[in-house]
């Protein structure tokens, strides 16, 4: 049900039944290694190319989801996924492997929440019994497309971010009274915000206003304050983006408690891992939310959280032609009540 301007409130409260998260070697050394279902110790993951490894990550995550619920592909109606690679081929190939009717999404790093919002919408209005949504990224494949070859010795500035090698998938289903799962209560679709920043090595700074805008809109549409949520977590703003977003929201009169405003990109790696300003990539918010945050919710740490996945909608062509970076953010609210 549309509430306010751009927010859906899901009265039927679709639930996240289970999740599957896979990651690469660098993530295995990070903070959240225990929250991954599958970890690889090789970037190639036994495949010939990074792109195939990328596809394999998502395939595995989706496979894990089905395995956990002992479902086959015939039980699942739709598969919504996306990534950063040209024409989102890794997601499409993964969809071809699993043979589930598929909707390809592109929202850059905001894909994870875009997928979750749409899946919940479909479930809420009886469009399906079960939907799998996922997002993935692969460091080397993304670097190859957006920046320089992986082995090139170029110096990155401290504002740069590290694309994670991970995939996260979740199974969304209808809310059945007898089972207790985290449920999706509302979602806000953001608009593209372009503040004219054009440095592809500072995406956090460019994406911050999009995150801020979506958060403010979400709170306005639902007519609640920031205290409504135990945690507001952004996708991949990094250090710079997080501070800029807080500052920017404060200027607009929305004061957030810095303790309750976290960033997935700052949670996944340890301090001694050289990731500059933080992590990024569609796999970042997907892996951290589906793997780590949901677990903490189930442990009763948070009751309500708002996940705001941010995406920088640039292409290598657009920034080389000197265009600024258009950014977007989608917010999804999740609730879990320990019974």
């Amino acid at each position, binding site marked *: 049900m549309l509430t306010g301007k751009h927010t859906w409130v899901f009265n039927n409260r679709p639930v996240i039944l289970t999740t599957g998260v896979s990651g690469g070697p660098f993530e295995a050394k990070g903070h959240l290694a225990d929250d991954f279902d599958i970890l690889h110790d090789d970037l190639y993951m036994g495949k010939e190319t990074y792109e195939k490894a990328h596809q394999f990550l998502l395939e595995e995550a989706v496979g894990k989801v089905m395995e956990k619920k002992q479902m086959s592909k015939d039980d699942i109606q739709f598969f919504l996924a996306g990534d950063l690679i040209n024409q989102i081929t890794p997601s499409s190939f993964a969809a071809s492997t699993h043979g589930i009717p598929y909707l390809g999404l592109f929202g850059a790093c905001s894909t994870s929440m875009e997928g979750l919002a749409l899946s919940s919408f479909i479930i809420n209005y009886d469009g399906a019994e079960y939907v799998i949504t996922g997002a993935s990224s692969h460091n080397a494949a993304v670097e190859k497309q957006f920046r320089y*070859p992986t082995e090139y010795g170029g110096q990155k*500035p401290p504002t740069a971010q590290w694309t994670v090698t991970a995939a996260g998938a979740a199974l969304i289903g209808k809310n059945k009274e007898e089972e207790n799962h985290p449920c999706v209560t509302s979602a806000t679709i953001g608009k593209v915000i372009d503040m004219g920043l054009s440095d592809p090595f*500072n995406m956090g700074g460019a994406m911050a206003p999009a995150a801020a805008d979506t958060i403010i809109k979400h709170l306005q549409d639902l007519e609640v304050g920031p205290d409504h949520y135990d945690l507001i977590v952004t996708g991949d703003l990094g250090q710079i983006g997080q501070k*800029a977003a807080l500052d920017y929201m404060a200027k607009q009169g929305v004061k957030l408690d810095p303790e309750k405003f976290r960033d997935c990109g700052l949670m996944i790696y340890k301090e001694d891992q050289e990731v500059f300003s933080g992590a990024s990539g569609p796999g970042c918010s997907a892996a951290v939310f589906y793997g780590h945050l949901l677990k903490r919710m189930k442990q009763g740490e948070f009751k309500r959280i708002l996940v705001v996945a941010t995406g920088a909608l640039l292409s290598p062509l657009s920034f080389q032609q000197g265009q600024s970076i258009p950014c977007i953010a989608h917010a999804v609210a999740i609730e879990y009540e320990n019974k």
Partner: protein
Amino acid sequence: MAKKKNLNPDQQKYQQLQKKHELKRPVLMNCIRAFWVGGLICLIGQAITYFYIYFFNFTEQTAGNPTVATLIFISMLLTGFGIYDHLGQFGGAGSAVPVTGFGNAVISAAIEHRSEGYVLGVGGNIFKLAGSVIVFGVFSAFVVALIKTLIGMIGG
């Protein structure tokens, strides 16, 4: 860096706000590191030159070619083993300016695009990064030579 011309007031205000939080490049530290890393690479180069002078029949004039070849070979190995990109992050210009940086640019592109086949992948992309070095190197050499010739003609 951003083009300031078409920004509306909101964008300008945000960019100022963002600037406050932006992490600055540690320029001085980078310079010092570049100095040491670059110097170290040149030291190794000098050692290799002496090696060729001492053990082979090369003079100071002619030892340059095998030295460059050896350095590029070493940088190729380092690139392939995944060490040179870490060196590059640490040393910045120090590892990019010597010939090893050029070698790294060529080889990393070749490794990266091997998956697209030898003709379209390796052949088509090997000079993806180094191509501009070659183009502008040749062009600036041409301009300098032109200026030198002209000055020579005028100066007699």
